[in-house]
């Protein structure tokens, strides 16, 4: 399950590569190496280095250095590298971005579903425990306050991360 910011990173990497394509494969790779975030930029830099030092064709160097990334990302970059014309390169970018958005949406649904289920399970468990006498009803208040504080702190961190990641 990828983080929310990761989807943007991936789209940004493919966008950078696609933007430089009319200048040739080295320009596109250089552009992606400078504009994409880590770990994607590292793979593009590695491909450039491999092509320069070992003398491999850049397309093969890209194939090897992108092998650690998932299939959809690798496929998008390699189909652009294999000489897609300008119009179809935009189509590749569009299709990749649409697939990434769909994946992000599915991930969010899953995470929200898990959080909601956990919330209900935790509340039900606590109430049941106090009803059957496993925990005294008086300890519900400090327990709730402690749990709520922890969750608030985690949420605050997430909000900060979202704010940093917003355009």
């Amino acid at each position, binding site marked *: 399950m990828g983080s*929310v910011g990761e989807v943007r990173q991936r*789209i940004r990497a493919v*966008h*950078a590569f*696609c*933007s*430089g*394509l*009319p*200048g040739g494969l080295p*320009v596109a790779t*250089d*552009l992606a190496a*400078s*504009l994409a975030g880590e770990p994607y930029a590292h793979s593009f830099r590695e491909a450039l280095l491999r092509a320069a030092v070992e003398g491999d064709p850049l397309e093969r160097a890209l194939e090897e250095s992108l092998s650690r990334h998932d299939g959809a990302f690798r496929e998008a970059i390699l189909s652009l590298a294999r000489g897609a014309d*300008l119009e179809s*390169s*935009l189509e590749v*970018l*569009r299709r990749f*971005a*649409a697939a990434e*958005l769909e994946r*992000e*949406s599915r991930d*969010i*649904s899953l*995470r*929200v579903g898990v*959080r*909601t289920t956990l*919330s*209900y399970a*935790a*509340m*039900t468990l*606590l*109430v049941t425990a*106090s*009803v059957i006498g496993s925990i005294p*009803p*008086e300890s*519900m*208040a400090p*327990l*709730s*306050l402690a*749990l*709520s504080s*922890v*969750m*608030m702190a*985690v*949420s*605050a961190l997430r*909000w900060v991360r*979202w*704010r940093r990641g*917003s*355009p």
Partner: protein
Amino acid sequence: MEERISLMESLAAALESGYTPAAAIIELARANPELKRPAQTIATEGDFARGLSEAARVFGKDSPLAHILLSEAEPRELGRLLRHAAASARVIRQVEREREAMLQWHRRVCRLLSAVMSASAVIMGRAASLFFQAFVSPQTSVEFSLAVMCLGFSALVLSEVGDDPRWLAVSPASAMAAHLLMRVLGA
């Protein structure tokens, strides 16, 4: 963003019609005040490299244009590059809009979940309190405790989709509404 893309397209058109990058920037600066400073750097100070860097910055600090402009390509080639960069920027702008719409949809769902979760927590708390009052002690109540706990869970759900933290107010409001409803119903 739209202005930046249009500017990119104007620059591409100027380069394609034979202007050098420096001349294109000076020409476009007449109609685009944001390019005045780079044009001035090129025309009066004669610092072409710095002028190009300044022009690139107009398109955003991480715009692909910044790198393309500095790649020293032949002007017509540069024009072609820019036109393609503008077209892909349009695709990305459309993607950003779709992403925002998708996130907005998830945010609405999360607000609804937060409200429902808080109301049901209070109802569950009321049922437990009635049990305690009947069998343990008449003063015992866990409604408020569960509402506080639910506030934390609501924050967790809302922050999952980066919603505005002010929507957290939905949770106590919904808990209060559920509490009042139960009072009205006599529970």
